[in-house]
């Protein structure tokens, strides 16, 4: 069964007196274990689509079903809690709390889930090890490179044991070496742990690594393979 399903999903924006179809009647299914890239020119609707799937934005029309739940019907607080329990997020920037160390940042999300102190600590250290940041666990974000920060963000996204991870242009601010490293880690997690990743990107190298590519233009899916 698909973990994500959208039905006739639309998100319109009013811009002065004309209407922008940021996402236009999208029907999409994503299965567990996919490593999916959402690709398209700037302004094509990638971010809007990811936000709708992630329950950060609500559709003008249509349905979003995540883990069998129609999340477009959820109220604010229920939606926040749904995101916490079901979805991992990696943003382009501002992923971390600057006053917390890498480990504390990863633990934070589990704290919101009321996990025990021991569980938090072991899992945070495990995850940071998995993204290759064993030595940086106690550093604060400002003491880490951009690439390292994004890897902490991936660890943080996984900490809550989500069904999938949404990443909107996770490599956009990174140099090519850091981009490679981050992709290696994400790909490895996908291959070895079966973690589902859905990410948007402009970067051809990132696209090349994807197992599935969804090409959007003007809010519509043009290619899907």
């Amino acid at each position, binding site marked *: 069964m698909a973990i994500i399903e959208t039905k006739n999903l639309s998100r319109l924006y009013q811009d002065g007196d004309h209407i922008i179809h940021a996402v236009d009647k999208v029907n999409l299914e994503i299965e567990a274990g996919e490593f999916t890239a959402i690709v398209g020119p700037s302004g094509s609707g990638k971010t809007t689509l990811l936000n709708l799937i992630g329950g950060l*934005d609500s559709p003008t029309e249509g349905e979003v079903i995540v883990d069998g739940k129609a999340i477009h019907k959820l109220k604010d607080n229920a939606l*926040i*809690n749904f*995101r916490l329990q079901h979805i991992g997020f990696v943003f382009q*920037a*501002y992923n971390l*709390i600057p006053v917390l160390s890498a480990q504390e940042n990863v633990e934070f*999300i589990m704290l*919101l889930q009321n996990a025990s102190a021991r569980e938090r600590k072991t899992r945070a250290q495990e995850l940071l090890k998995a993204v290759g940041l064993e030595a940086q666990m106690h550093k604060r974000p400002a003491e880490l490179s951009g690439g390292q920060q994004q890897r902490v963000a991936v660890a*943080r996204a996984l900490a809550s044991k989500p069904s999938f991870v949404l990443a909107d242009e996770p490599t956009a601010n990174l140099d090519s070496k850091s981009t490679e490293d981050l992709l290696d880690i994400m790909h490895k997690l996908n291959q070895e742990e079966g973690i589902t990743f859905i990410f948007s990107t402009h970067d051809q190298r990132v696209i090349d690594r994807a197992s599935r590519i969804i090409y959007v233009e003007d809010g519509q899916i043009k290619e899907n393979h």
Partner: protein
Amino acid sequence: MKTVFKIAWRNIWRNKLRSAVVVCSIFLGIWAGIFVSAFSFGLNEQRKESMIRNQISHIQIHNSTWLDQKEVAYTFSATAVDDYLNKDPRLKAYATRSKASGMVSSAHYSGAAQIIGVNPNAEAALSNLEEKLTEGEYFPEKGRNPVLIGRALAKKLEAKIGSRIILNFSDGQGNIISSAFKVKGLYKDVSSKMEELNLYVRQSDLQTLLGLESVQVHEIAALLKEDADIEILQQELQANFPALAIQSWKQISPELAYADEIMTQMLYIIIGIIMLALSFGIINTMLMAVLERRKELGMLMCVGMSRTKVFSMIMVETFYLALLGGPLGILFAYYSVWQGSKSGLDLAAFSDGLATYGIDSVIYPALPTSFYWGTTLLVFIMTLLAAIYPARRALKLNPVETLRTI
């Protein structure tokens, strides 16, 4: 929730200077506010004490007609009241007085005079008449008709110690009495007007001249050990002596009583205004902090931090700022008021002005303990109110928007 406290605590130190400025301004504002309050309160207490010691005492007893028509004839018999007060342990001191209005004259000047006949020993215990003497002796044993006059009057009369002055007044029967008195002492009072008006003679001398028995007096003034007993004793006396007018200091000097009553309210208003100003500083700082961090706050809401938690985090940050400065300010204020109350603050430079209000030149700041608790409560309320607005602003952030705008 523990983490919310931890993050909040670290957050306030992200901009050390800004937080330090807010903490310091709260600290200084509250310190200064309380100290100024203690100063005003102390000033008022001293004024009250001095008025009570100087002029009005705690309780005054008169013939009820005397209050309206201050004529020699309206005396009352002191015996029964004397017996009653004599054995009352609540009393610190009391004294009887006789009074007459008339004229004082010397070769150089004559003017209106209020002649007060006092019992020297009882009066010395009751009021500070003896301490007010700057020259001469307080009713020496020897010599006929001694009188104590104010320095201002002495100057006008061109009288010195040993000078003779003439007092004219009418007795109860309408006869004008004229008698010579010898200046035995000069006193200093809080105002030159009082120095000019009031003359103190021996009660027995005055009674003889007025043709009154020694038990026939115009006034009994009493001082109590405890303020709390004043009204109780007043009521008891009134019940026992319904024909007499028994007044407490609050009735004798309503403006003094009023000042006493509104003092604390005034001080709370002062503190309140200071806190209002401080709370704008807090709100401003926290709003800046929220707006600066809107992407971070947006991210937290995106990944699943509930609005309640975001709200609490900002509230806690505000409380940290206020609770670092506030209690410190209160403690410092408490200490400096305590120090000040021991040594007093000498305002000799302004004391001429103060003297006209009946105040010493050394001010002893004082505050009731309840005021410190009240201020603590006010700090809490201020913080709560100041915290709500920035925290609400954080709540209103649209997470998706904050992430979109670079």
